[in-house]
């Protein structure tokens, strides 16, 4: 085999090894066996910029390619209509901004965004179809600072979000697979929670009113309040 062929053979091996390493980073794992070490020296001028070398942080590199493609689409102006949340009949929640509908797959993130953007509105299919599919609202993580979501072209830092710590395949071995724990489905929407609490609160109020005024007095009060609400004058029902 000629020297050139041997060199090309080495090059293909190196490319295949780098492919595997990049794939392992994207998958959040450590790959199998050998791991190439970064070549940069410590403390040199060029390393003094506070950068993170790709590969030194598995969490930072995880799904990096996917996130890059999202970020290109997320650079939008902060101006225009305020983003809002909608919910379809099938229960899926979307953030709508700039004519795009962005699915929020995590119940935890949806609940957190409700605090900022208000409750989710139910939407019919015809209304939903007016918006174009956008990139999903996913949790991103930079080299520094807390994880964040991008809404309205801004980074909204997330606090209290549990994030995984990468472990190797070998470390996984002692733990057999169990049943799935779906964090998203376990979470209850903040709005649903408030509604539930509000309903119970109303029942408690009626009970105490009955105790104080009797059934007839309470019925009159409730009827007159409902009439006011129907006329759109004051009260909780007015918009």
């Amino acid at each position: 085999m000629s020297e050139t062929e041997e060199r090309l053979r080495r090059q293909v091996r190196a490319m295949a090894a780098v492919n595997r390493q990049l794939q392992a980073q994207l998958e959040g794992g450590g790959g199998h066996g050998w791991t190439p070490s970064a070549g940069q020296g410590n403390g040199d001028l060029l390393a003094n910029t506070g950068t993170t070398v790709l590969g030194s942080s598995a969490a930072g590199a995880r799904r990096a390619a996917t996130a890059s493609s999202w970020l290109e689409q997320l650079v939008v102006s902060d101006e225009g209509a305020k983003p809002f949340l909608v919910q379809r009949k099938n229960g899926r929640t979307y953030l709508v901004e700039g004519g795009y509908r962005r699915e929020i797959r995590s119940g935890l993130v949806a609940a957190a965004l409700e605090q900022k953007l208000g409750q989710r509105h139910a939407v019919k299919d015809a209304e939903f179809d007016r918006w174009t599919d956008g990139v999903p609202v996913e949790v991103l993580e930079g080299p520094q600072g807390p994880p964040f979501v991008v809404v309205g072209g801004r980074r909204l830092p997330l606090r209290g979000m549990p994030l995984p710590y990468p472990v190797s395949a070998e470390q996984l071995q002692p733990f057999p697979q169990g049943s799935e724990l779906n964090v998203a489905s376990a979470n209850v929407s903040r709005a649903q929670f408030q509604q539930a609490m509000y309903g119970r609160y109303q029942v408690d109020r009626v009970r105490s009113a009955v105790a104080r005024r009797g059934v007839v007095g309470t019925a009159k009060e409730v009827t007159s309040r409902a009439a006011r609400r129907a006329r759109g004058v004051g009260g909780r029902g007015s918009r």
Partner: protein
Amino acid sequence: MKTAKPVTVIVPVYRGLAEVQRCLRSITRHAASSDVSFQVLVIDDASPEPELPPYLDHLASEDHRVSIAVVHNPENLGFVRTVNLGMRQSQGDVVILNSDTIVTDRWLDRLAAAAADPNVATVTPLTNFGSICTLPRSIIEAFRLDGTDPKIDECADFVSRQSIQMLPEVITGVGFCMYITREALDLCGHFDEDTFGLGYGEEVDFCLRATRVGLRHLVEDSTFVYHHGAASFGDERKARLAGASARLHERYRFFRATNMHERAHDPLRLPFTALELGLVERRADRPHVLHLLHSPPEEIGGTEKHLRVLMESLLADFDASVLYPVDHGFALRTFWNLGSDAPFEQEFLLPGAPRRVTQLHDEVAGEALTTALDMFHFDAVHIQNLLGHSLAPLEVLADFPGRVICSVRDLYLACPNHSLLYRNTQPCGVPEDLALCERCLAETRDLPLSYLTGFRATAAARLESVDRWVFASQSAADYFLRVYDVDPERIEIIPHGAVIHIDRPGREVDEGLISDEPLRLAFVGRGWAKKGLGVANELADSFADSSIEIHHFGELKDRSSPRLHAHGRFDNEMLPELLHQAGIQIVLLPGPYAETFGHVMTEALIAGLPVIGASYGALGERIRPTGAGWTIDPTDVAGIRELIENLDRCRIEVLRATRHAIAARVQSIGGTTRRYAALYRPPSLDAVSATTADSKEEVPV
């Protein structure tokens, strides 16, 4: 070279006599082997060490293969001004070389050759201490470059041999040893001594100015120059670095972002990976076998387990690698003996597209195998399973010069419905009447008959690629030969070794259990129709009013009878003990599927239990000569029931078969290795006896 004028190697010297001596000696030592015309200009920057100036003068007065000129600055000018002084005295290309470096064989030739490329401003070699040009940690450790006795020449030789010579482009060269072309000097001038006069940052500033005029900066990735590092300014280094960084940021606002991008995408990642791979090179004199598998070798399936043990057993004589499909293409995993206790496992992801393997011919699979064969030398290829690879490997291997072995573990090559069950219920036996196949394939696989005929024709045309066909049983070979015309000389029958340990204590006839307790049969394996769950359900229901019990060990895929005693999933290694704990006397394998071997039967024999299995396929082939059980027609449930009732009444027959089961010989996988070794060994090595041996090749249990 771009210029006929000699290259000037500028060595500014301030302090550190020993390091300066080593540096200059290395230059003179390697000058002999250099074809580049060069001169050395040593500039003593008013060194405070009294021994230094006389040493330099003495050196200059000696005869060397290279001209050495020494200049003494009357007062200390600092590194940058001193370098500029040298540059002004040069006429051709220059090399700025720190006095704490040690150059290696043909260092200047390689740098000059790289600099001869068009539009090059600077060229920097690899080193052990030099920013982005610093070698990976593993190589620094391998050659003890951090220690007191660094293996400098050995490292240089290694780097030059293993380099892929990519000459990667970087945003700036590194100052410990930087080759600068005359073109760059003419266009950009010298270092900016007013701004960076104290040292650090001057070479970055120069490089960024050169970039602005369209010149490039290369790393010569086959050259190593040792750099002691940080000797020049001692403790002041940190402060000077910070100052230089701030000045660079002020002048080049884009630089930090560009530098960050370069660090993230690391232009040297590929050359460094190639070097790291060079540290773990396979011994070329050891035979190397490539296995084609349908899933990662660590999966739990029988084939994967078998391959793993086979590779381990052969590791003394053979290196192995495994090619298998993954979601994003194909992966190649090494399994080499590099002399340490454990085999060296390393994974490569071969270039390719996401897996879309069709059963007939998949281009990506073919290209992956071709790439694997290009990457390493292989003496033999062993196809363990073609699932996920399509028939493409058979075409690629037509030109493979080594031996090709194909293990036929299922009859996928005979029919896409490789269970050979007509409409998934009746054993078809590979019918000659293709009208049956047409009906069956349409129902079971949604495929037309033309697919089957095309598949078989393609496979038949490529059969010659395989030198040896390996079957675990004669019956599997017979089924295969009904479809393909293969020379019997090229067929090997190698029964599978047990995937669990065979040398277990306590296997003896328990007459009390067999004679006095209710008859208990265990249906072992995945609970679905192919394995005979329907028959087991019927039997369990029909024995509801008798003392006979039907147990099931394994995962239930379909509905089971409430009369079936289900034990759930199990670890194969524990199966013999589980069967004994449940008081099982007979293992029932009622599936209509024609087994090509029957690992469960092996495990039953290891447990010392007789087996009831189909009269055809590998089970019948194995039960009849051993007498370790009884054969049945799986479709005749009434006949099976009658057999079991007779056995219940005639326990002495159960006792007889149990004794035969205990006496039956079972092979470990290791026991088959010598036969595989003979298949893998190149003809030239046939005469050489294999060291592979297994004292437990065949064990009566």
